[in-house]
């Protein structure tokens, strides 16, 4: 890490450095704004052709992590990172020509459905709440629900009505219904869930994370659907994305790496 920091310092002065150095990569991942402010993109032009794959991965992660902040979008616009990256090196090495996809944030208590193949639905920062992603590879339609509480019946009815996507029961039926409406078939769909983290030593009574997980499992048993992948519990914050084009889910657990499903 110290090594990386020296790199960071040099980097501020735009001295060449080794892109494949994992320490440096990690160092910059935790300081994306710094990375951009230091005009990382100028390096794309400065002859590090062989590292384009590393760079691509880096920028995609960077983008995923920060695209929700308006500050970042502003910097992206001003710096022209997206354009220089896409037009210049990407085409040279014949990587995917699909533009860096449109990221749509699925905030707390939101439900998003999409059929746009260039779109990626991303739920950032999942705590004790859960995110359920459903995708139909045939119709290429997918939806992501981000809810925080297990049951709407414990609340006053008007609250549940006001925010149906805040609860597992009301949110999940809405998600499934919306997807089936878009032509998806229950036999095709892939279900991925993530979240349900808990604070350390949280006793059963107050363990909302566990209850959220139970509610989701019960729902899918009742509807005869199986869960393809789940990443639940623990004490880490997670992030889940669903790429509508490929149906690929990425679950990132902060501090512990990521899984692709």
């Amino acid at each position, binding site marked *: 890490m110290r090594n990386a920091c020296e790199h960071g310092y040099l980097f501020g002065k735009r001295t060449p450095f080794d892109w494949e150095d994992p320490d440096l990569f990690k160092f910059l991942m935790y300081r994306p*704004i710094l990375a951009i402010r230091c005009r990382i993109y100028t390096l794309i032009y400065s002859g590090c052709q062989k590292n384009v794959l590393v760079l691509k991965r880096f920028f995609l992660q960077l983008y995923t*992590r920060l695209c929700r902040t308006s500050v970042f979008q502003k910097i992206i616009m001003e710096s022209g990172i997206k354009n220089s990256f896409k037009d210049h090196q990407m085409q040279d090495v014949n990587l995917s020509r699909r533009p860096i996809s449109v990221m749509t944030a699925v905030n707390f208590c939101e439900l998003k459905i999409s059929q746009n193949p260039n779109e990626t639905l991303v739920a950032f920062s999942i705590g*004790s*709440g859960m995110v359920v992603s459903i995708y139909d590879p045939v119709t290429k339609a997918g939806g992501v629900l981000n809810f925080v509480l297990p049951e709407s019946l414990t609340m006053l009815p008007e609250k549940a009505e006001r925010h149906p996507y805040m609860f597992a029961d009301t949110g999940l039926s809405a998600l499934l219904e919306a997807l089936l409406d878009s032509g998806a078939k229950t036999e095709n769909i892939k279900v991925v869930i993530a979240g349900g983290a808990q604070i350390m030593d949280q006793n059963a009574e107050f363990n909302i994370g566990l209850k959220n997980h139970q509610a989701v499992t019960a729902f899918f048993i009742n509807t005869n659907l199986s869960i393809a992948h789940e990443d639940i519990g623990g004490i880490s914050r997670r992030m889940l994305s669903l790429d509508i084009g490929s149906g690929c889910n990425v679950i990132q657990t902060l*501090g512990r790496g990521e899984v692709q499903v």
Partner: protein
Amino acid sequence: MTNIDDIINGIDTLKPIPPVAAQIMALAEDENSPTSDIADLIIHDPSITASLLKICNSAYFGLSRKVESVRDAITLLGLDQIVELVLLNGTAENFRDEPDGYGLGEGELWHHAVLSAHVAKVLAGNHGLANKKHLIFTAALLKDIGKVIMGRFVAFSYEKINILVHSKGYSFNEAEKEIIGMNHEELGAQVGKKWRFGDKLIYIIRNHHMADETCRNDPETALVYLADIVCMMIGFGTSLDGLAYRFYGEVLDRMNLTEKDLQNVIFDTDEHRQKIEKLLNLV
């Protein structure tokens, strides 16, 4: 282990809180001080007038007529709202930047601070501590001030902290203490001392993760703690530290909170969140 003095010296890199905000904090701690004192303070401080009027006249508040003086603003929006705006304005600077090390994005720590402050204040009203709401609001707002300085040191030692947290069952603040020699609560309390906060405010900041058993009986600290864990559970403003803090059910029991109440708090918090994000664009 990092040299503690290095960490403490980091306090000087913080931007000082404007005098008017500091005075309000001092008054808020004293239950017997009349609210008119706070109003007088705000009315007679020209340094905040311009920004206050700008915020009050924004579309967010949707007032039917233009606010032309701070006195007007207090009448129209209420003193509590104005006090909060002054406090937010005074502390925003330090929280805005991205703290290294905790993996938080730009502004995330600030959003977390404001949301938990808001939740803590609402809880204070519901639990019969309305007369201390300014103190509780301020404490929840500033509880993580230590993270602003600490982040740099956490970044250096993150791997080691991570191992303790994920393999040895340490909470994040315990691991900070073990590896770096100090955690963000203690550092926050040091900031408080240096900035001459009142004793109660420093006490809450130092104990906001309830590591010390005796403070679990303290109703003000308990509210700040509850607001913090609820924000964590929603996943708001947490990052590499995640939910790696300890949960003390007895604190909730003592406040007579059931699971249903906790769920209600989470629900309300999320409603506040939507409102607050709009407000934050103004401050």
